[in-house]
Structures are given as C-alpha cells and as structure tokens.
C-alpha cells in the first residue's frame, strides 16, 4: 500500500505521539469555543491527521521492516512510557483513522440534526477525547498507560451515549449502565496490571513479556491474566458481559453508534490479543486453558444466542447491536482458536465488521435523518422511497449474513478454515447456524424495506432529502464491503500481519 514514510522527517519522527496529541489538543480547543461547525472541522482535522500519521507510520514500518517505537519525553523503556506500533496495532490505527473520517463526514448533518446547537462543540470535544483514548490504547506500549487511555476513551463515550437522550431518554440509563459496567471492567483491568507490576516490577509491555516467560507458575501472574481477561472482555462486550451494549448502541445518537460500533469494542479486542499473545505466554497452560474452555464457549454462545436475540428485536438498531455482540463472538472464536489462522481470522473479521456495521449504521442514520424511523415496522416501503440508501443497507446486510463476494463471507471463510485447522467441526456448524440466524434478522429488515408496502400516513410525515454528506460515506462503506469482498489481499494481508505480530512477536511484515 505505502512503502515508505512520506511526511517530513520532523513529523514522521514524532508521528506516534502526534497520533494522540493532535486530537487531544484539538479537543481542548474545541471545548473552549462554542461553534459546532468549527468543532466538526477540528474533529475532522484531528481524525484525518491521525489517518495520515497512521499511514506514514505504516510506510515507515514497510520501509524498515521493524516496529516503530517512540519513547515519550525521551525516557527510554522500560523506564519511560513507550509508544510502540507493530503489525498488530497499525491495523487498528488505520481502522480508527478510516472509520473515524467516514463517521465524521456523516456526523455533520447527523449531529446537526440530533444534538442541540449549544452542545455541539462540547459533543465534538468529547468525541475527540474519546478518539484520543482509542488511538492511545492502540498506540501505547505501556500497560498502565493503556488503562488510562481506555478510561480516556470510555468516559467521553458515556457522555456521548447520554447525548442520545434528546431523542430517547433511555439513552441516559443505557449510558449509566455502561458506565457502571465499563468502570468495573476497567477496574478489573487495572487490578490485573497491578498484579503484573507486582510480579515483574515493570509496566512496559515488552519488558513484562520478557519477564513473564519465567513466571508461568506464578499464581499472581495467573490471577493477573484472569482479571485482565475479564476486564477487557467486558469492554469488548463478550457474551455474557455484553449487556451494556444493545441499549447503548440503540439509544445513542446515530453518529456515536456508527463510530462506536466500528471502533470501540475493536480496540478492547485488540488489547485482549495484545495481552494474551504478546505479553502473557500463549503457550502457558493457564492461557490455553482459558482460551479453550472459557473464551471459545462464550464466543460460540455469543454467535448463536445473540443472533437469536437479534431476530426478535423491534428496534432496528438493537437488532444491529445484538448482531454486533454476535460478531464479537466470531472475533472471539478466532481469538479462542489461538492459532495464527484463528487470530488473523479474528482480526480480519474485526476489520470487516467495522465496514459492514459502519455501512449499516450510516444507512440507519440516513433513514432516521429522512424519516426519523427506528422501529422495524417503520421501515416498510423504504426501498421505494429511498432506493439508494436501501441498496447500500442491503449490501451491508448481505455482508453481515456472509454472502460470498462480500467481506462478511471472506472473514467467515477464514474463520471456518481456522476452526477446521484445529479440527473444530462443531464450531463450523455453529458458525453456519449463526449465519442462518443472521439471515433471519437481516431478512426481517430487508423484507420491510423492499417488499412490504409503505403504510399511508395521515398526515404525511415530513421527509428530508438525505444530504451528500451522508450518502458519500454510506456508499464508500457499502462499496468497500463489495470491493474488499473480492479484492481480499489488502485486508487479509493486514490481518495476517497483525496475527503474526501478535503470535510470533515479530513485525509480521
């Protein structure tokens, strides 16, 4: 994709820290001024700069074939905080950059529609902080720093979700529940990090990893892994710790849902992979035992049960939210398979899921923008009223099902191969079964959109034209679902690099 650094040396040398700094500083600026439009522009600048920097870092990595490390303030690891970007987190950074940019394009009309004018700049500030946190999690090489960034991303998220209260007050309770759960998860995580520090005396991930090799018998290490696993699983919405997610996604503003669905749980999932394979010793019996006997069963339960839950929802965004939980199950299954193929399938699904959910939620945003609809019954006849958006939604839906030549199929295919590689036929059967369930919930929506006639409204509901700012990201995402469904090299390459980086500890390039 990109073979070398392209920014000036002054920038590219400091790119890892600028990734975090730019949105953080912009957040402060945005918060201090009242204009929503300025806020949007600043946010866009922040996100786009992240994307550019991430691309530059990717180029650097391609050029050098080694991870890009950056010592904050010149303090060398393991004493100082290190930002370290290898094959695993560059995928995340690119994803954040791309999805953030697309979501922000969509944000302009959507936020203007849903958020009171006076709150808009604060809203964008919160978004920027959240984004900072997510980027930080994906960048940092320091375990405690990761916790801090995790919370930096979470706290604004609570606020962002609660902003949905202007349309539906349940956003408040959803946000509150998320807050309680998120805090518990973060606390578990920080306890785990504490135990790690206890047993190794260092917080630098690479350093911890080196020291832990000798300590597999150490109970503290095992307990630390348990806490970190549960804490991050909660953030990643692994079944049955997903219960904060459906309401959160359902009642948040459209833009927030779009952004979170394609990024937030992914970042937690990344952290999980990082800790499990990079920091702890993946060959240790307690790690493999937990992956096989806890993560994998929960993953397949998520795939099946959450898909079933999705079928009967009346709120379309809840359908998609439950589907997200099921998709997390797919990723977790790849994670639980714990082989190179499995992890790369999980990473691939992570990337692909962002594409499909992005497309779907943007399409929902468009429907909501034009008609204010959320319930599945209100979707009747939309296919004739908004054929373009409906078509994009359909593409996303098909991808979600896993129809061949969409990204959904590709990642499911790799997941199935990974499961078969380990001889897990039952997992294959459950993947297929879950796909059938996915057919049903997607089908319910598509039927209403395309086939059922629109009810006659008295008086006619107000309709607004969907602006280009919504259509552009929508179609980019929808087409990406198709393009990357057939042109798989790029994403599969990224995912495989990521898995190699996680498992082999190398660059994976």
């Amino acid at each position, binding site marked *: 994709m990109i073979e070398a650094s392209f920014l000036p040396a002054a920038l590219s040398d400091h790119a890892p820290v600028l990734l975090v700094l730019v949105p953080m500083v912009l957040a402060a600026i945005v918060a201090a001024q009242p204009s929503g439009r300025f806020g949007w522009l600043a946010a866009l600048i922040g996100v786009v700069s992240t994307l550019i920097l991430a691309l530059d870092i990717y180029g650097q990595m391609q050029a050098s074939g080694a991870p890009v490390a950056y010592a904050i303030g010149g*303090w*060398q690891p*393991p*004493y*100082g905080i290190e930002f370290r970007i290898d094959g695993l987190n560059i995928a995340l950074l690119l994803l954040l950059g791309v999805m953030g940019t697309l979501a922000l394009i969509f944000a302009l009309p959507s936020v203007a529609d849903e958020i009171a004018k006076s709150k808009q700049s604060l809203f964008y500030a919160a978004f920027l902080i959240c984004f900072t946190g997510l980027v930080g999690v994906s960048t940092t090489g320091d375990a*405690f720093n990761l*916790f*801090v960034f995790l*919370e930096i991303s*979470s*706290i604004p998220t*609570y*606020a962002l979700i*609660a902003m949905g*209260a202007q349309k539906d*007050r*349940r956003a*408040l*309770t959803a*946000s*509150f529940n998320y*807050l*309680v759960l998120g*805090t*518990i998860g*973060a*606390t578990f995580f*920080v*306890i785990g990090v*504490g135990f790690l*520090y*206890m*047993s190794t*005396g260092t*917080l630098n991930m690479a350093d911890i990893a*080196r020291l832990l090799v000798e300590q597999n018998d*150490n109970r*503290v290490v095992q307990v630390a892994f348990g806490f970190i696993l549960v804490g991050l699983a909660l953030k990643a919405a692994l079944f049955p710790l997903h219960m904060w997610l459906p309401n959160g996604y359902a009642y948040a503003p459209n833009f927030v849902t779009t952004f979170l669905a394609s990024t937030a749980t992914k970042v937690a999932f990344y952290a999980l992979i990082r800790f499990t394979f990079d920091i702890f010793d993946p060959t240790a019996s307690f790690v493999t035992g937990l992956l096989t006997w806890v993560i994998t069963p929960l993953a397949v339960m998520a795939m099946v049960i959450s898909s079933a839950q999705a079928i009967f929802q*009346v*709120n379309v965004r809840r359908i998609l939210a439950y589907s997200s939980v099921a998709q997390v199950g797919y990723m977790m299954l790849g994670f639980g398979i714990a082989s190179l193929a499995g992890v790369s399938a999980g990473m691939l699904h992570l990337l692909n899921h962002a594409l499909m959910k992005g497309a779907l939620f943007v399409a929902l945003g468009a429907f909501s923008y034009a008609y204010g609809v959320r*319930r599945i*019954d209100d979707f009747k006849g939309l296919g004739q009223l908004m054929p373009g958006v409906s078509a994009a939604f359909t593409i996303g839906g098909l991808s979600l099902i896993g129809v061949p030549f969409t990204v959904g199929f590709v990642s499911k295919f790799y997941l199935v191969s990974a499961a078969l590689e380990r001889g897990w036929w039952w997992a294959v059967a459950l993947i297929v079964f879950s796909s059938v369930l996915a057919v049903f919930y997607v089908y319910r929506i598509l039927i209403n959109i395309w086939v059922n006639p629109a009810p006659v409204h008295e008086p006619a509901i107000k309709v607004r034209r969907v602006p280009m700012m919504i259509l552009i990201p929508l179609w980019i995402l929808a087409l990406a679902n198709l393009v990357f469904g057939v042109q798989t090299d790029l994403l599969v390459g990224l995912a495989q690099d990521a898995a190699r980086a996680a498992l082999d500890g190398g660059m994976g390039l």
Partner: protein
Amino acid sequence: MVELISERFNYIIVIALMMIGLYGVVSSANLVKRLVGLSIFQTSVFLLYITMGKVFGGVPPILPYPAEHGDGHGSDAGHGTAAAHAGEGAHHSVEAAHDGDHIQSDAQTHGATPGATQSDAHAGAQGADVAHGASQAASHGDLRERVGEAVHSLAEQAAHHDAGPAAYDGVHHTAEIIYSNPLPHVLILTAIVVGVATLAVGLALVVRIRESYGTIEDSAIARADYSDEIERGTA
C-alpha cells in the same frame, strides 16, 4: 494464624472493600448508591496499589555520583527510574557482600511468592533480581546487562571506596525503614483522577436521569420505560 492475618492485613482490607463495593453495585437499586459502591470498589484498587508500593528496607532511587561512572552507562543511569533500580541493586549487592545470605534469601523468598507478606515484596524482589543480574548478567537481556554492570560497579564503590550516604544508610538500616516506591503512587494518582472523572460523569448522568424520569430507582425507571413501550405498542 494471627501472624498470617497481620502480615496480609492490607490485602484483607482491600478485598473487604472490593466486596463491599461490588455488593453496593449489585444490591442497590438506587443509582447514587450504586455509584457509591462503584467508588468504594475503585478505592480498594487504589489501596492495593499503594500496598504494593511499600517496600521494607528500600532506598530512594537516587544515585549518588551520577557523573563518576560514565563509560557509556551514564545516560542510562542518569534517569530517575534507572537510578532507583540501581540503588536498590546496590543495596542488595552490598548486603549480600557483607551480611551473608540472610536478607538476600529473604528477598528471594519474597520474590518467588510476591504478595505473601506485606513487606518489601516488590522492591525486594526487584533488588534480588538486579543483584542476581549483577552476578549473572549474561542470562538477561541487553539492557539488564548494562544495568547489572552499573550496579556492579556501584557495589564495588560501596565496598571499597567511600560509599555514598544513601548506600551507607541502606547498608545499616534496612530492616527498620518502609520505603515507598513512588511509581505506584503516581499510578494511583492517575487512577484516582480517572475514578473521580467517572464518578462525576456518573453523578451527572444520575442528575439527568432524575430530571427526565423523576426517580433514580432502577425498578421505577424500568417500569417507566416499559410503559412507554406499551404506549407505542412495541413491547
């Protein structure tokens, strides 16, 4: 038994607080009480960190003569944390050299089962580790090696030359002093900030919930939501 409990007194407190906090979160339907529970839960973690930051017989990580041992290690040793490591290492090396293996074995015990006592678990472990590194430098990584070398040279200084005051104190007053490792404190300061921020957001949410629902009882909120759904005919 008593000894066992008293040795682990801090941990018991931590666990008790954690359970109380969680119980608060689980049992209460009142959102504010739930936040209070959450805070207590978080607080327990703060205590855990602080506990692990206490080191029996530690020394502040200040290097006496940073300028003297140049030859390439200067830049490393010049940093605070590195100095702390080095200091601890020096202390233990000296200990080992002078008082036989008593304290060292003590330290190693702690190193092997950290958290078994509240004493110098972390620092001791690390010290032992570094000391170990001093003698078996080759078995560790590159960085370790370098630190180990630095420590070795420090230990030599302490033994043969006029040792710096810190090292000297370390040699003679180890058992009495509880050294506070600053790093966990720093960490927990951050965590407290995070906790406060979370609490603030949570309380703000509760205020908003009270504004729109008129109640902060979980069950009442659920009822209100449900009747909304009924009204819309979607339940």
